């Protein structure tokens, strides 16, 4: 493959902040990214992930803090001086230029020779598998094809860093899964460093080497996908990772990390994720998949079934526990609405957090 990404060792965000008037979009973001990593910035709308990317690209200034590429400070440079490749959410393809001209634009701006531009554009088109579409206008392409043009345009200049701002959010579900694999494949064969913004935890988990979970302008947790999936550090991160259930209760016993909590009259086991003391009000986070209908369990939570959705391999049901809390759980068979069910939860999969968290 002719295209290989340029060299650097690390990218560092140093107390990056951005405020719009009185609204703080980013609060002291610290982050170090190594060459070759695929890092996902994950969070709900408004968490600051796109703002971070835009500051990195130079499209919006930081209010304070800085960004360093090895020993060079880059946040004072204009976007055209940074040389990063960026894929925008709506692709931002130049509508009046052909696919070939779009992809070759960055090379043209760098003053490359015509023959070299043609050669590299051909390589890029082959890499994103768009042969045969070179002379079409963006308006004549499908969404998936447009997205591949956007990716080719960003990588053809062999940038040290590739930035992607929710590139898959405008595609249908099937195409999204296909393109996910493509993006990872391109990252691997390019040897690039990619920073990928998304609100979809499934995308982040499947693509990234490391995930940065953000919320309201601050970094909540950084870690490998399996770490974040199994052991989120905060309640809001857990919720974002699919721990839909929040069961309020009281801590009754604590041994190292293992806990015993009282919920709705039953004593359940769990794993503590933060310092806490016996008697503290706590919240237990559990995935619906980890809560099962188990009438024979020694310890279980009684609920009244309020909904039951067919999900192919199982049913996702909702119920109301004693105390009025909403609980989501899995069942092998369809349950009647209004029926009583007793739920068990695997102690190793239930995470316990203190109720009031910073």
């Amino acid at each position, binding site marked *: 493959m002719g295209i290989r990404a340029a060299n650097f060792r690390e990218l560092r965000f140093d107390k990056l902040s951005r405020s719009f008037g009185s609204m703080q979009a980013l609060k002291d973001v610290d982050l170090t990214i190594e060459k070759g990593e695929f890092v996902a910035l994950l969070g709900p709308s408004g968490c600051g992930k796109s703002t971070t990317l835009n500051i990195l*690209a*130079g*499209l919006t200034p930081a209010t304070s803090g800085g960004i360093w590429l090895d020993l060079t400070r880059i946040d004072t440079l*204009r*976007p*055209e001086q*940074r*040389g*990063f*490749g*960026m894929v*925008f*959410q*709506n*692709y*931002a*393809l*130049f*509508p*009046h230029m052909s696919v070939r001209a779009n992809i070759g*634009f*960055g090379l043209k*701006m*760098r003053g490359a020779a015509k023959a070299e531009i043609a050669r590299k554009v051909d390589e890029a088109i082959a890499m994103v598998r768009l042969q045969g579409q070179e002379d079409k*206008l*963006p*308006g004549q392409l499908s*969404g998936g094809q*447009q997205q591949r043009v*956007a990716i080719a*345009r*960003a990588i053809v*200049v062999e940038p040290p860093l590739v*930035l992607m701002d929710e590139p898959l*959010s*405008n595609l249908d579900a099937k195409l999204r899964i296909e393109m996910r694999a493509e993006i990872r494949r391109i990252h691997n064969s390019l040897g690039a460093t990619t920073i990928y913004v998304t609100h979809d935890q499934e995308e982040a988990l499947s693509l990234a080497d490391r995930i940065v979970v953000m919320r309201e302008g601050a970094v909540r947790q950084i870690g490998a996908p399996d770490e974040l999936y199994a052991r989120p550090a905060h309640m809001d991160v857990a919720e974002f990772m699919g721990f839909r259930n929040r069961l309020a209760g009281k801590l009754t016993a604590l041994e190292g990390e293992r806990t015993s909590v009282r919920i709705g009259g039953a004593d359940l086991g769990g794993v503590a994720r933060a310092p806490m003391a016996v008697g503290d009000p706590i919240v237990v986070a559990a995935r619906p998949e980890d809560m099962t209908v188990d009438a024979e369990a020694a310890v279980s939570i009684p609920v009244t079934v309020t909904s039951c959705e067919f999900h192919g391999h199982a049913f996702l049901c909702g119920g109301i526990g004693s105390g009025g809390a909403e609980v989501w759980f899995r069942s092998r068979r369809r349950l009647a609405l209004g029926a009583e069910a007793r739920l068990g939860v695997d102690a190793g999969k239930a995470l316990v957090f203190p109720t009031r968290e910073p």
Partner: protein
Amino acid sequence: MTDALPRPSVRTRLAGRGVDSVTLLALPAVILLFALFIYPFGYGLWLSFTPKDGGALANYAKFFSDPFLYDTLAKTFWLAAPVTVLNVVVAIPTALRVRLARRSRLLTTILVLPITLGTVLVAEGLLTYLGPQGWLNRVLITLGLISHPLRLLHNYWGVFLSLFITGFPFAFLLTLSYVSGVDPALENAAATLGAGPRRRFWAILLPLLLPGLAITLCLSFVQAFSVFPSAVLLGAPAGPTRVISIAAYQAAFEDYDYSMASAIAIIMGVAQLAVVALILAGRGLLYRGPAGGGKG
């Protein structure tokens, strides 16, 4: 064996072609258009072919054989074309700058104000402003840029300035709306690919603005070509700024030759039409699709 379906009624068939009771709502507009435009235009056209003496084309022959008359075409062009081009050329950077400004609404209002004043008021005002004792000359002399006043009245320049001032708001408004229609993400994408402000303008913005600018040129030109009060008040109606509308006016209200006046008006219309057709033909060669960046 099933029976054939009954033939649909006239109403249904008409509705299938897009004609129904809602279409009738267009009727008042069509009637007005006919009564106030198509009929008078048709009447004027017929009038131009029925001169006081001579054959059907006598008026037109007279126009194109008398230098005092056909020179007006050239003089009007010589006024309208440069003013139009200048209007559009100045409107582009102004619109780009105003789009980014914080008080863009206030700036837009100020720049559009001359439209509300009307050509006569502006012309009257310029009579004083551009005179030898007027503001402009006084300021330039005080600053030492000139030693004696510029002659800006009763000549080409007075009319030129008046046309510029009254025509600019229109060109500016149109250009502003076209500029706002270009997706800002396109410029951002160009910037990340290494294009500085100049190259972003020439490679991305301008090509996407050209179709809109062509329309702006057409409309501004038509407006400038029909100049009348400025030419009479600020120009030299007997000489260098004798525009075609003055010739038509004189034919109608001084010679009482309505037939000739109609002929001159038709010639004026044909000249404007020719220029518009030329510009639109050129526009047809450009990319005219949406100026957005893709899906979403």
